[in-house]
Every structure is written in C-alpha cells, then in structure tokens.
C-alpha cells in the first residue's frame, strides 16, 4: 500500500477515532510469523509456490499474475471511497484530492450561489473506482482543483475514463490554496 500525502497535510495535526483493537488482535492471531510454532514459510518477492519457494515456469508465472490481478476487486471494496459534498443535483461539480478539501469547503460556504456547487473529493487513487466516472459525468459543469502544475489527477482520470473538465484551477507556487483564491477563481 502506498499512502499518498502532501506537505500541507503532513504539517497539520488532527484527532482520530480509536483504532479497532479487536480487529487488530484478530489480524495478529492470523499472522504466519516465526516463533509461534507454525509451518515455516519463505516470504518471497519472486513468483513463488505455497511454501514461498521461487517458481519460474511460464504457466506458474501467469497463474501468479492472474491471482494478483484478481485481488483488484477486493482492493476496490477496501480502498477509501469518494466523499461527495452538496447535492448530487447541483449544476457544477468541483473535483479535487488531498489537502485542498478544507479550502474548497470554506470557499463554498462563502459563495452566494452555493447550492449550484457540489464537491467530490477523491481519496482512492489506484485501483481507480470506475464508478467515479459515472458520478462526475452526471454533472453538467466539471471543475478541477489541484495544488500542482500539471493537473496530475486529470491525467490519471483521463487515462482510465472519458472525462472533460470545463474549468481547471491549478496552484503551483509552493503554497497551499486559500479559500478566497478558490472563491475568486470559481466566480471568474
């Protein structure tokens, strides 16, 4: 798993709910690790059999790859879902990711025509949920907000689905977004 963060997020702090101790204990008891008298195993970064020993046959390699790919469905179930703020009947949808969320929500509070806007925060980047395209394409106007120069999220979305943004708000001067800037850009 790769946890994607950004400077603005990693320099902030927030409270979280208690971790699920019961779930943790259950995972701990299921682990196949040394010192518990279980059957010895090799954890292997090469394609391997059930005991962990390398396999190099074409058929076995393909089988291992298919097994990995079959996990995508389950990962999609577990990966963080999108957050949709506002009405799904709004005229305009703001699409963004990462630490822009706070500034966007603040900006929307201040907007005169706030009912016109909904905001979709994408949290699971890969595998990318195909449902995201249905959500975005249900809106007439689509506005992208990203705190980078090259619209990285747009590149990702376009590589996987048909999506066209009506407006792009990008900031890349080494600073996070301020709500006033977003408000101004939306009204522009």
């Amino acid at each position, binding site marked *: 798993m790769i946890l994607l963060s950004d400077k603005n997020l990693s320099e902030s702090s927030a409270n979280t709910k208690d971790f699920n101790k019961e779930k943790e204990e259950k995972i701990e008891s299921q682990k196949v*690790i*040394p*010192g*518990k*008298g*279980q059957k*010895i*195993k*090799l*954890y*292997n*970064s*090469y394609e391997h059999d059930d005991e*962990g*020993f*390398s396999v190099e046959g074409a058929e076995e390699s393909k089988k291992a790859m298919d097994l990995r790919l079959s996990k995508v469905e389950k990962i999609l179930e577990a990966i963080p879902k999108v957050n949709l703020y506002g009405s799904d009947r709004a005229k305009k949808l703001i699409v963004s990711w990462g630490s822009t969320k706070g500034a966007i929500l603040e900006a929307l509070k201040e907007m005169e025509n706030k009912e016109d806007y909904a905001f979709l925060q994408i949290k699971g980047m890969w595998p990318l949920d195909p449902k995201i395209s249905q959500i975005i394409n249900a809106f007439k106007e689509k506005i992208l907000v990203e705190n980078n120069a090259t619209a990285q999220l747009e590149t990702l979305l376009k590589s996987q689905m048909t999506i066209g943004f009506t407006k792009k708000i990008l900031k890349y001067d080494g600073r996070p977004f301020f709500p006033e800037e977003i408000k101004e850009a939306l009204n522009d």
Partner: protein
Amino acid sequence: MTNWRSGIAPTWCPGCHDYVIFAGLQNTLTKLNLDQDRTVIVYDIGCIGNMADFVKAWGVHSLHGRCIPTAVGIKLANPELNVIAIGGDGGIYGEGLSHLIAAARLNIDITVIVANNHLYSLTTGQSSPTTPKGTKTKSTPKGVPSIALMPVELIKTVNTEANAEHIDCKEPLKVNEAMEKAITHKGFNLLDLEQLCVSFGKQLK
C-alpha cells in the same frame, strides 16, 4: 538434528564461492543448534540472494538493497529472534548502503553477511561500490573511475563496538568460525566475505 536445507539444489555456477558461504551457514546453524522457529534469514536480490530457495528457515527474499531494513524490522518486532541478512556487495554497499550504516549505528543485534565479489553478478558483471578503481567491467569499459569502498573500515568507524570482519572464502574453515562468532555476538555484525565470481570476475583475481 535440525534440517536446514530446503531440498532444492543450488543453481550457482560450478566453482562459485557462494557454495562456500552456503555450506558455512549450514554448518554454523547446525553447530549452534539454533531454534528453527526463532531463526529468520532475510536475503537481498542477486546471485547470493538466491540462497533463499535452498535453506529451510523462516525467510524473506526481499528487494535489492533492502535486506537490512527488513531484518531490522523483524528484530524490532520480535527481539527474541535470531536475524541474519544475506546479500551481495551491490545490494548492501550500493543501493542499501545507508541501511547498513543506520543498522550499525543502532548497534542492533543482527548479522549481516555479504558475498563481496566486487560485481553485480546476477545481472552479468557490472561494477559495484567495491570494484577496484580502474577495473574494466561491462558498465565501465574504460575502467571504474571511483575509489573502492572499504566496508569493514567504514563500519568500524561508524560503530567501534560492532563486530566487522573481512574473511576470504578461499578459507572455508575461517568462514565457519567467523559466522559462528557473528551469530553469537550480541550487537551489530558485518561479515564481509571475499567471494570469487568465476563467471564474470576473472579480471579481479
């Protein structure tokens, strides 16, 4: 007597010193009679890392340059385990050098065994951080421009308490003794083994 062999036959080139290291490890594990359920070996990627398939013990065949952080993590998770990391000069002194230094500074009780053949051998003979200056290899047709790293001296400078030794695989009994010393010594151990690669290292003899 505990069986430390997986039953899979080693695939190293005939005459490779990796067989000496494998035999040394087998002898030492047997002699020390370590608890097999509490012994973990982490392998780097490379010819020597392929030992993963030939040993019967808890193991991780990790990533190139990353056997040490994996071993450190395992030792931190359960300090009662005997933890050994095995890799080549490319992985441990190249891509993983900062991990070696960090583990030595931590003086963590693990044993790092390096098959130092002065080459990236699995990838057919490019230069590594311990290739002598001037040596011609596939990746340095005009000779290596850099000064070769001195791993034992480096680690002794970082941690004066560490057990760091250089032993030549031409003397298998000394390899066995050094392995026994390293695995039983409490604290950080680096065993730098001079290893001949018969296929790509002839110019180094």
